């Protein structure tokens, strides 16, 4: 198998990675985590396709340099073409198509969500399929029955806000910083998780769906009372820590309960978790405890593979083995609706 260069531009992060068979990661570069910012005068808009345009080629160069390879050594291009922000995806897809064309190498289209689960496979360094997959990030909260690396049946997902989005918005309500996940987790460390009673949507329902919008609103009510338009000034510190801890516990309780239900329903004994929220320590330890109780194996990648990156696109290796190529007519597809479990 050749060296595969992968490109990720589905949302905020511009990322590139090089990997080869097994799969083995040769390099993994994410723009916001490197010193590359300085090359653009320190101004990097969080979003906007233009930022991807500026960053992509230096990131690709960096990924090649760290792998000790030149562009000519690349024998295949992989790219996340769905789901994501269409303008952002288009930058990566266009670049990947041009590279495949000029290098005259095959192109592989990779699904960003499938990659998040594959990150757990990469970290495990052995097969983890079939498994229950939980992707929990700023943009997604979704449970799958992963039959193999590329065949996912949808078990359930969020009906409104993603879990990571709820963390960000509650951080904003509490006057904490951005990104909200780490900010809420730090604040929660000094609070009591049972101090404030907050809702846990669908906790005792059969359905494996999530809803975090009502939880966010409940934090607002607990904070300000329903008469006040906006919680100003920020609450006293102990109250704030208690709210952060109670909110975090409510999110974790639901994610753990639904994962456990999914394991029982599918009869599987493996749980793979991906996405930025998987970096949350409270979630990790609660999932570990649940997996122990269920007699299940838990696979969570390290932080660098939880948040958006291009190394997780190594699921392309599986596509290579199955001869699943993309044509140069490949398009960016902003939304992706997996087929439900039957």
């Amino acid at each position: 198998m050749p060296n595969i260069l992968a490109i990720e531009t589905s949302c905020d992060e511009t990322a590139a990675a090089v990997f080869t068979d097994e799969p083995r990661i040769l390099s993994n570069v994410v723009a916001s985590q490197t010193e590359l910012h300085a090359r653009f005068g320190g101004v990097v808009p969080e979003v906007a396709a233009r930022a991807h345009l500026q960053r992509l080629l230096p990131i690709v160069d960096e990924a090649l340099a760290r792998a000790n390879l030149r562009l000519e050594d690349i024998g295949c291009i992989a790219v996340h073409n769905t789901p994501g922000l269409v303008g952002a995806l288009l930058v990566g897809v266009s670049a990947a198509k041009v590279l495949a064309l000029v290098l005259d190498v095959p192109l592989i289209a990779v699904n960003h969500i499938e990659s998040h689960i594959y990150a757990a496979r990469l970290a495990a360094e052995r097969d983890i399929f079939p498994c229950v997959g939980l992707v929990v990030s700023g943009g997604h909260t979704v449970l799958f029955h992963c039959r193999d690396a590329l065949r996912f049946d949808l078990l359930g997902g969020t009906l409104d806000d993603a879990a990571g989005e709820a963390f960000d918005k509650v951080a904003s309500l509490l006057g904490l910083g951005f990104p909200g996940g780490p900010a809420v987790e730090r604040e929660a460390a000094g609070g009591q998780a049972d101090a404030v009673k907050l809702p846990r949507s669908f906790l005792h329902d059969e359905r494996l769906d999530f809803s975090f919008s009502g939880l966010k609103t409940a934090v607002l009510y607990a904070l300000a009372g329903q008469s006040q338009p906006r919680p100003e000034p920020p609450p006293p510190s102990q109250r704030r820590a208690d709210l952060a801890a109670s909110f975090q516990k409510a999110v974790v309780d639901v994610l753990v309960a639904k994962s456990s239900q999914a394991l029982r329903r599918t009869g599987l004994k493996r749980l793979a978790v991906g996405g930025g929220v998987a970096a949350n320590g409270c979630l990790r330890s609660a999932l570990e405890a649940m997996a122990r109780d269920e007699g299940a194996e838990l696979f969570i990648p390290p932080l660098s593979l939880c948040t958006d990156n291009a190394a997780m696109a190594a699921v392309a290796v599986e596509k290579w083995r199955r001869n699943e190529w993309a044509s140069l007519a490949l398009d960016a597809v902003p939304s992706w609706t997996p087929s439900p479990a039957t």
Partner: protein
Amino acid sequence: MALVGQLGAGKTHLARAIAEGLGIADSRAVTSPTFVLVQEYAARLPIYHFDAYRLHTQAEFADLGVHEYFESGGVCLVEWADRVPDCLPAEHLRIALYIAGETSRRAEITAIGSAYERLVERGE
């Protein structure tokens, strides 16, 4: 349609109701676009669902190509529209949501521009 209101006011909920009104096949597809910034849904008219919550500048919103969407003949719903006032079309409908109680909301509808003034006057 500019959807305005604080966190938890019900902007996404209202967007889902509008999508249902436009005959969307499965309104569970309507989720918060905060992360992805814009989502598209097929309904009687195409629906473009925007969210300016996490943008830092109005220019970033313009960079999404919003003006092309606004001119495309679909229904554009913009959450947190008050954060991107300069990017909104000269004529639009503004719906401000206020929390009136734990399970009730007050909506204030304002027509911006003559076409929408006529719509609101006719109660449509």
